């Protein structure tokens, strides 16, 4: 560790001497004052000199004394130039403008710099978009969902038909770190996975890291989905929203003090239960079925150097049947951040994060019923620094500490039959420290390397159990408050390097190791709120993922087409599966139900995208395998993971016919899931029972589907714009198999039954936007 740090600093000091000055500032969207993340700042006179803005729109560039032309640029904005005579340190804030007319986008702007950051950046295996750019992509029930759009990109596989859960490069669904304004979201789905908890209206930017994961992120083995909420318009008040088949949305935003602070509140509620009431006479009164989300955020700039942000998310699913059965579950997160600019080169962000997920059941009437509840709660304190050492080295470093509280379950009741049962809560402290350098070496070589140290301390008050080979408890030991039950720690090296062959193509290579100390227990195909998270313990070891990736990037036709091909190889250690008939519910000794093994995943991913012009979209192809090996499963032989879909294709096309009409379509195809089917049968108690010979030895039928969409942008007024979106999910009505089950038919003959979840589903959504209201003007 020590050697590594000194090496890091030696490498940083490789620049020549000479008088240097720094230009720094922030980049914003001129229309609403939102920070622009990942905007590029380049120096026209120098090759391979430049920087990008951080998540708060901050940039800093240190150059030798001289005259320069700086170019500020970001996708979807007109580039801006700024001529500067650098004889002292300078502050320069930039506001980027959106092109006045949509038509202008069609014509390629011949600008001084080329939009080839995908070639020149050392970042690899990153998928990034803002929800606006994909708003016309057709989705099921017309509910825009960034998580479902991510599933249309290479290396990301859906957890199932219509599901917002996903697998990244052969990893498990619990191996994705999903962050909303730095707060982890433990259960990112509504209604058993059919909708994600992320309301697109409140989201500014989504980044998915599949490899080359920056050192600042830790805690999950396979990927990071970093979602940033919008800050709200700090110039004018506005309201926007939509009415859809499943849910309606409303967003309010505006300045707190113009150009100094802003707020945004965005809400969404579904109303499936209203339809239920209409269609089913047999449904008892007081039946509820809905979910809601509320996103809120405010920020305020205190002087030039300080800014605070407060953001929160509250969402809940509620389902009840009369007075007999009720359940609800949801997430609550809160983030308080303080940005401070110590100097033109040192940017600091201090964060306090709260995250909570809980669920509860109420069954039976008040006197006779019982209730079940469970929760997981985090407090996270984080300190991050960005240090813009010189124009060849940008350092990031920081520390964080998370306190986890797990309440795996409690049963309380009024019925005499049931004994109250409260599973032991578990407490843990998860610590992290990291340092990373993004370094340019000459004009053709970039390297980003870093090291993360993480530690996990499971502590009392609580019990630790030991189990024999059959999963039966052999000993139990109690621990006091804050007493260590089990301690794990490890180093997570991360590195990626980029060799720029020319301005149109480059080669990148990356390696990362990720440790994961929390594990989600789920032995079903659907996403349930009861899929508990458990900490690493004396029995459950941290999951370890090692991945190497190699990529080739090529831009064609003046960056009109961007192509990438990546191969990866990944190993996963300490993976979890379950004993036959495992009882994961309200079980203090749940660890006895688990078995441990390892995984291997490898593949090739190809992406061709076109982001400019009337015609945009992408083609994604993934050729991959995802394998597992457990001593206790399949006689110890390697088997396919469920998501071992060998071929996976997504084609997304968007066509802007004219100012008022946009058409879109996407088509997906993938090899059927690996599944377990019987290879024989026998009778028990007069019931015909399937006989299995191997785990996941069969395949579901191949999956394919076409969705089409049509968006009509109605006549725009000065302060009002609105559109109507019609989409058809599964347009050619393919009966894709959701499950295939084996049972006897009415004649007692064994048959295979295929269940199709969604056949053709049309939907319609109306969206509106009221903008540019300025109350002060009115009073003038």
């Amino acid at each position: 560790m020590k050697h590594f740090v000194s090496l890091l600093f030696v490498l940083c000091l490789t620049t020549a001497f000479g008088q240097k000055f720094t230009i720094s500032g922030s980049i914003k969207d001129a229309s609403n004052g939102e920070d622009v993340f990942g905007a590029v700042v380049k120096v026209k006179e120098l090759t391979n000199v430049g920087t990008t803005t951080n998540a708060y729109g901050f940039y800093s560039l240190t150059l030798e004394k001289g005259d320069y032309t700086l170019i500020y640029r970001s996708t979807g904005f007109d580039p801006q130039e700024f001529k500067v005579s650098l004889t002292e340190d300078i502050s320069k804030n930039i506001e980027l403008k959106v092109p006045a007319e949509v038509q202008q986008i069609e014509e390629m702007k011949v600008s001084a710099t080329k939009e080839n950051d995908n070639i020149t950046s050392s970042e690899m295996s990153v998928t990034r978009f803002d929800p606006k750019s994909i708003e016309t992509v057709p989705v099921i029930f017309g509910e825009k969902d960034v998580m479902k759009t991510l599933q249309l990109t290479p290396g990301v596989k859906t957890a199932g038909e219509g599901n917002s859960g996903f697998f990244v490069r052969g990893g498990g669904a619990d191996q994705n770190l999903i962050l909303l304004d730095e707060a982890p979201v433990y259960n990112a789905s509504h209604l058993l996975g059919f909708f994600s908890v992320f309301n697109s209206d409140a989201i500014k930017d989504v980044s998915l890291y599949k490899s080359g994961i920056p050192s600042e992120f830790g805690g999950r083995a396979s990927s990071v989905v970093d979602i940033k909420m919008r800050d709200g318009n700090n110039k004018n008040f506005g309201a926007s929203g939509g009415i859809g088949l499943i849910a309606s949305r409303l967003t309010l935003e505006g300045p707190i003090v113009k150009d100094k602070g802003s707020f945004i509140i965005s809400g969404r509620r579904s109303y499936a239960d209203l339809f239920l009431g209409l269609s089913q006479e047999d449904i008892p009164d007081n039946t509820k079925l809905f979910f809601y989300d509320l996103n809120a955020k405010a920020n305020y700039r205190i002087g030039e150097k300080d800014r605070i942000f407060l953001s929160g998310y509250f969402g809940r699913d509620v389902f009840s049947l009369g007075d007999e059965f009720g359940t609800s579950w949801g997430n609550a997160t809160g983030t308080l951040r303080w940005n401070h600019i110590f100097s033109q080169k040192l940017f600091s962000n201090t964060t306090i994060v709260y995250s909570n997920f809980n669920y509860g059941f109420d069954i039976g009437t008040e006197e006779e019923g019982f209730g079940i509840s469970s929760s997981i709660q985090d407090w996270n304190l984080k300190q991050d620094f960005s240090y813009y050492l010189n124009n060849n080295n940008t350092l990031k470093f920081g520390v964080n500490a998370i306190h986890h509280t797990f309440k795996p379950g409690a049963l309380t009741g009024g019925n005499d039959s049931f004994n109250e049962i409260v599973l032991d809560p578990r407490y843990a402290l998860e610590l992290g420290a990291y340092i990373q350098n993004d370094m340019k070496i000459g004009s053709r070589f970039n390297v980003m390397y870093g090291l993360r140290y993480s530690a996990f301390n499971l502590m009392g008050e609580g019990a630790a159990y030991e189990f024999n080979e059959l999963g039966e408890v052999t000993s139990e030991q109690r621990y006091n408050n804050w007493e260590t039950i089990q301690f794990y720690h490890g180093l997570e090296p991360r590195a990626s390097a980029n060799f720029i062959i020319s301005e149109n193509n480059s080669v990148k290579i990356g390696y990362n190791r990720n440790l994961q100390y929390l594990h989600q227990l789920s032995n079903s195909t659907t996403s349930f709120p009861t899929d508990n998270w458990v900490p690493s313990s004396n029995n459950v070891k941290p999951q370890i993922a090692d991945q190497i990736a190699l990529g080739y990037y090529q831009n064609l036709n003046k960056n009109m087409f961007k192509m990438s091909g990546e191969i990866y190889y990944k190993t996963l250690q300490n993976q979890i599966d379950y004993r036959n008939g495992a009882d994961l519910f309200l079980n203090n000794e749940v660890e006895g139900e688990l078995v441990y093994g390892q995984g291997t995943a490898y593949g090739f991913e190809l992406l061709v995208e076109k982001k400019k012009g009337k015609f945009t979209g992408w083609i994604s192809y993934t050729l991959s395998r995802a394998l597992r090996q457990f001593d206790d499963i399949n006689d110890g032989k390697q088997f396919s993971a469920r998501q071992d879909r060998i071929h996976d294709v997504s084609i997304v096309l968007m066509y802007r016919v004219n100012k008022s009409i946009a058409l879109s379509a996407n088509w997906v195809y993938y090899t059927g899931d690996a599944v377990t089917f019987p290879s024989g049968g026998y009778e028990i108690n007069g019931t015909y029972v399937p006989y299995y010979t191997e785990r996941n030895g069969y395949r579901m039928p191949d999956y394919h589907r076409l969705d089409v969409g049509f968006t009509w942008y109605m006549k725009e007024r000065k302060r009002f714009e609105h559109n109507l979106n019609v989409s058809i999910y599964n347009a050619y009505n393919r009966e894709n198999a959701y499950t295939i089950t084996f049972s006897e038919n009415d004649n007692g003959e064994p048959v295979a039954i295929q269940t199709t979840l969604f056949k053709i589903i049309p939907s319609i959504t109306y969206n509106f936007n009221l903008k540019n209201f300025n109350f002060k003007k009115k009073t003038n």
Partner: protein
Amino acid sequence: MKRILYTFAIGLLIVSCQKEIDVDLNEADPKVVIEANYTAEDSTVRVRVTQTTNYFDLAPAPEINNAVVTITDANGAVSNVNSIGNGSYELTNYVPAFNTTYSMSVSYNGVEYVAQCEMNPPVPLEDMTFDFYPGFFGSPEGYASNIRFFDPADTVNFYLIVLSKNGSVSDSVPNLILQDDQLTDGNLVERPLFVNPLYETGDVIGMELRSVDSRMFYYYSELQTIAGAQTSAAPANPEGNWSNDALGYFNAYSNSRKIGVVP
């Protein structure tokens, strides 16, 4: 719990559809299946030895009549269970000793399959009661019976509940009701047993409470996850108590019964 949610997902939210399809399945080598019950109620040991077939075969399972079957009590006394044809073997007037372990041996084709099971004493049922329920989700209204019994305190108990209506016994695997005392140890256990369709006035309901050992309880719960169109993500053969990978089980159990008439 999951089943309730699952039903809600499939049944309410979605316009799902089901159809019979052809699936090309492998043909596994035949495997020995031993279904052995030792019932305290009539002091009889009943064993059936068969083999697996290809899944879609309509022919009855091949029966094995030339196996050598014995049962051994806790004192080591060995008794033969003799073939009565059709793959069945039987031993009558074999009086049980409660809280002792029996072992069974089945020898066939040079392989000996062995299993042990504990014979637990019966737990008496109290009189059953009935409650009326309005129907929902398309099923008509009717009655469900409430099982009532005192769970013995401070012992770990496992039960299998078998219902019958007007003399017809629902003992197929999906209809068996499993009950343990993890949440109810030492209490008066009283819970409704829902059936579809619900009972009507005048139905004669029989209730049987079998006391089984833990291994059998888990065997049946695993069996239920794969029998009768369940959708487990990773289905596997239930782990019975036979050695040498024979399928099936050896269950030594006692029971108690009650009969009630729906008011």
